[in-house]
C-alpha cells in the first residue's frame, strides 16, 4: 500500500510538471486569443535540448557546468517532502519544512553561482535580484509553516498542510496561509507579477536572465528543475485548499489534489494574463504582503486557542 502510494508520488512528480507548465501556457494563450503550444510542449523541448551539444563560455568554470544539475536534484528532492497526492509524502519527518526551505536555498545558490560564473553583467543583475527577493521572502514561508504547525499540532509539512477549517479563527489561519503561500510560489518560481518568464528584455528579468548562457542538456535540466519547483509549490497550495487532505480515503485525496493543482495552475495562468508585471521596486512590497499574511496567520492561532482555553 505504502509502496504503491510512493510509486504514484514519484510518477506524479515526473508527469505533473510537464502538464502543469502546459496548462499555464495554454490558459495564457487562450486569454490572448491564440491556440498556443501543445500541453506537452515542455517534454518536446527537453527531448530537443537533450540532443544538443552544450556551449560553454570561455569565462566559465566547472561551477557553471554543474549548477544546472544541482538545481534539478534539489527541485526533485524537495518534491519528496510535499504531499503531492494530498495525504502523505515519501519523506516526512519533524520540521521537514526547514529542510525543504534550505534545499530550495541550495538550488537557488547553485543557480546564482552559475550565473555569476559567466561574468555577464546581466546575469549578475539577475542573481542579485534573486538573492534579495529570496532573502526577504524566507520569513513568510516559516511564519506560515509555524502557524500551521501550531494550529494542527503537527510538525511535518504533510501533517500541517492538512488543516481542518472549523470556526472563524481557523478560517483566518487557513485563508492567510493560502494568500502567503501563493505569493511565496509566485516569487520562488519566478511567475507574474514578480517576474515574467516570457520577457525578452534582460534588464527586467530575474530567473530567465540567470540562465541566458546555459544551453543543451544543461538548459533542459534547469527547465525541468524550474517546472518541478513550480509543481511542488502549486501542490503546497493545492493541499492546503484540499478539504480531503490527510483523510483516510487516499484515492479521493489524491484525485482532489491533482485536480486542485490544475485549478491553481489555471488561476496562476489567469493572473499572468490579466495582471501586469510589478515594477522591480514594488516587488519588496509585494513580498511584504506575504510576510504580513504569514504574521496574520500566526497571530490568529493565538486568538483561537486563547478564546477556547
Amino acid at each position, binding site marked *: 500500500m505504502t509502496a504503491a502510494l510512493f510509486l504514484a508520488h514519484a510518477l506524479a512528480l515526473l508527469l505533473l510538471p510537464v502538464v502543469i507548465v502546459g496548462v499555464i501556457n495554454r490558459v495564457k494563450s487562450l486569454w490572448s486569443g491564440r491556440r498556443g503550444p501543445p500541453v506537452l510542449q515542455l517534454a518536446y523541448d527537453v527531448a530537443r535540448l537533450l540532443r544538443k551539444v552544450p556551449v560553454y563560455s570561455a569565462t566559465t568554470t566547472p561551477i557553471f557546468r554543474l549548477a544546472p544539475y544541482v538545481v534539478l536534484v*534539489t527541485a526533485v528532492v524537495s518534491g519528496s517532502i510535499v504531499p503531492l497526492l494530498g495525504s502523505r509524502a515519501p519523506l516526512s519527518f519533524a520540521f521537514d519544512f526547514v529542510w525543504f526551505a534550505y534545499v530550495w536555498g541550495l538550488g537557488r545558490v547553485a543557480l546564482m553561482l552559475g550565473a555569476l560564473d559567466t*561574468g555577464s*553583467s546581466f546575469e549578475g543583475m539577475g542573481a542579485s535580484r534573486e538573492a534579495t527577493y529570496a532573502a526577504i521572502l524566507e520569513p513568510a514561508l516559516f511564519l506560515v509553516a509555524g502557524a500551521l504547525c501550531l494550529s494542527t499540532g503537527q510538525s511535518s509539512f504533510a501533517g500541517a498542510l492538512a488543516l481542518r477549517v472549523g470556526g472563524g479563527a481557523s478560517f483566518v489561519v487557513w485563508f492567510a496561509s493560502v494568500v502567503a503561500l501563493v505569493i511565496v510560489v509566485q516569487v520562488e518560481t519566478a511567475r507574474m507579477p514578480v517576474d515574467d518568464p516570457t520577457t525578452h528584455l534582460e534588464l527586467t528579468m530575474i530567473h530567465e536572465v540567470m540562465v541566458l548562457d546555459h544551453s543543451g542538456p544543461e538548459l533542459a535540466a534547469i527547465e525541468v528543475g524550474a517546472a518541478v519547483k513550480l509543481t511542488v509549490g502549486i501542490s503546497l497550495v493545492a493541499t492546503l485548499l484540499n478539504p480531503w487532505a490527510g483523510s483516510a480515503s487516499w484515492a479521493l485525496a489524491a484525485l482532489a489534489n491533482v485536480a486542485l493543482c490544475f485549478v491553481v495552475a489555471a488561476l496562476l495562468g489567469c493572473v499572468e494574463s490579466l495582471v501586469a508585471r510589478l515594477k522591480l521596486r514594488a516587488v519588496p512590497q509585494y513580498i511584504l504582503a506575504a510576510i504580513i499574511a504569514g504574521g496574520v496567520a500566526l497571530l490568529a492561532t*493565538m486568538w483561537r486557542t486563547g478564546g477556547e482555553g
Partner: protein
Amino acid sequence: MMLPLLVAGPVLILGAALALVLRRNADRALAALASQALATALVLLAVVPILAGGPPLVRAWPWSFPVEVVTLRVDALSAFFLAWSLPMTLLGTVYAVGYLQPYFDAGRNGGPHFALLNMVSLSFLTVYSVQNALVFLLGWEIAAVSAWLLVIWDYGNQRVRFAGFNYLVSTHVGLFVLVAAFMFMHSQTGSMEFQDFGAFLSRPSRGRVIVCALLATSFALKSAFFPFHTWLPRAHSAAPAHVSALMSGVIHKAGLFAFLRFTLLLGRPEEWMGWCVLAFGGLSALFGVLYTSSQRDLKRLLGYSSTENVGIAAMGFGVAYLGLSWDRPELVLAGIAGGLLHLFNHALFKCLLFYAAGAVYRATHTIDLERLGGLLRRMPRTAVMFLVGGLAISALPPLNGFVSEYIVYSGLLAGAAPSRPANVALVCMAALLAFVGAVSALSMTRAFGVAFLGAPRDPSVHVEGDAPPLMLAPMVLHAAGVVVIGVAPGAGLALGRSVCLLFQPRGFELTEAVLTSTLAPMQWACRALAALLLVGCVLGWRQGRRARQHVTWGCGYTAPNARMQYTASSFSSDFLRIFEAFLPQLRREHLPREIFPQEPGHLATHSVDAVERRMLEVLWQGEHFVVQTSERIPEEPRFAFGAGLVALLVIVGLLVVGAVR
C-alpha cells in the same frame, strides 16, 4: 587522569620558551608545533573519557594569598571546549608557518609569534578548567593580551596598530565589567570560588540580576555580540589570516563558555532572562548578517559573520533558558545541543573561510572584493575550500551548518511553550532565523561569486599561485570536519552529549537519545541529498564532455570587458536599498554631466558600521560637553568643587549599595 592535563601546561610554556630562544625560524616553528601537538595529545587523553560520560576531574592545591586554593575542575563543559580548542590552535599554527613564510624569507623573527600561539593554548587550559575567579581572570587576560599581540603582527602599518589598540581597549572594558561582577559576588559571598558564587547565584535576588547583567555584558563583548561588536571587523581585517581564524573561531568562544559556566551555576533562570538571551541572540544574528551583505573587505565580511553565528548559538541557549524556567527538558536539550554544535560548527567553517581568505591575500595581496575575480581558475583548491565553507555557513544541507541550525529550529518550532503568545513569539524567532540564513546565503554567494567566479576585474592584481601545502592541509582538515558532521550529525552530537546531560533540569531524565531519534530521518534525508547531488553532478559532467566553447553571451553587445561585470557593491545594492535605515553608506560622487562629458566623473560608496559611528558621535559630544562644563567652573574654589564631586560619588555609591541590599 588529571596528570596529562597538568603536564600539558608546562609543555606549552616550554615550547613558548624554546620558540623565543632558538635561532632559526624553522626551529622556532617546530618547537611550537611539537609542544602544541604534545599538549593536544595529552589534553585529548584527559578529556575524551569525560566526554564519553566519565566523572569530572577535580584537583585542588593550597596556594598563597590572595588565591588560597587553586581548584581545577574539568567537567563535560570544559572537556567539550578543550577537545577542539587546542587541536584547532595547532592547525592554526601549522597554517601560520605557511602563511608567514614570505615574512620569514625577509628575515622577520617569528619566535614571539609562535610563543604567543602557545600562550593562547595555555590560556584555554586555564580558562576552561579553573574554579577560582582570580585565576580565571588571569587566563582571560593571557588570552586577551596574546590575541592583541598576535593581531599587530604587521605593526609597521598604522591601520593595524589602530585596530589592535581598538581591540585592546574593548576587551579591557569587558574585563573591567567582569571584574566588577566578580567583586560584587565576592562582597556577597566572601569568596572567589565559583562554587560559592553558585550558592549566591542560585538564589533569586536583586543582586543576582545585577551580576547577571554585568556578566552578560562582559561575555557579549568577548564574543562580539551586537552592539558590542565594533572592535571585531577592524581586528579581523587587520590581523594575519590564522589569527583572525583563531580569534573568531576559537578564542572568542571563551565568552560563550563562560556564559554557559555561569548558566550552570545559576541553576534555574527566570523566564525573562531566557527571553533576553533569545532576543539578544536574534538581534546579534540579524545585524551581524545584515552587515555581511555590504562589506567589500573579505575578512571584514567574515568578521561580521562571526557576530551572526554567535547570535545563532545564543538563540539556542535562549531556548534552553526558557526550557529551564518552564521545566521543558526537550527545549533544554534542543537549545543546548543546537547552540553547542553551532559553536563547534562555526569554529570549523569560520577557520576554513579565514584560511581561504588568507590564501587569497597571500596570492593577490588584496582582499578587496571589487578588485578580485576569476580566482577559481588560478587557485582552484582554495576556491573549493572557500565554497565548502561558504555553503556550510549559509546553513545549506548537506553540510554541518544546517545540522545545528535545524536543532535550534526544532526547539523554536516545537510548540512546547506553556502559553500561546510564547509559542507565537518563538515561531517569530524561527522566521527571523530563516531570514538570517537566507541573507547569509546572499552574502556568501556574493563573496564567492565576485572573488572566485567571472573574469579578473583589476589587471593590476597578479595571482601568485595556489595555497602551499602547509596552508592547504589545515583547510582540508576543516573542510573534512564540515562534511562529516553534515552527513553524520551523530558524530557532532556525541561530542556534546555529556554537556547536554549537565544542563538537564533535576528530576527529568531526558537523554540525547530523544534528539538522535528526531535527527535520524533528517540525517538520512541529508545523506540521500548528498548522494543524489553526487550522482546528478557525475551524470551532468558526462553530458558536458562534448561541449563547444564560445564567449559569454553579451545580449547583443559585442565589446564587453571585465570591468562591466556585476561588482560586489552592485550585487548587494538592491538589498541595501531595502535596509538602508540600518546600513548607512557614505557616498561621494561626481557624476558625468552633459551628453559628451568634458571631465571624468567618479563614484565611491563606503559602508560604515552604524554602531561605531554613533558611539564615536556620542563620545565626541560627551567630550564637547565636558570641555564646555569645565570652562564654566570658576578658577578659585577648587576645594569646594572637589568636595562636591566626592560627596556625589559617596551618594551614588550608597544608592547603589542600598538598591542591592
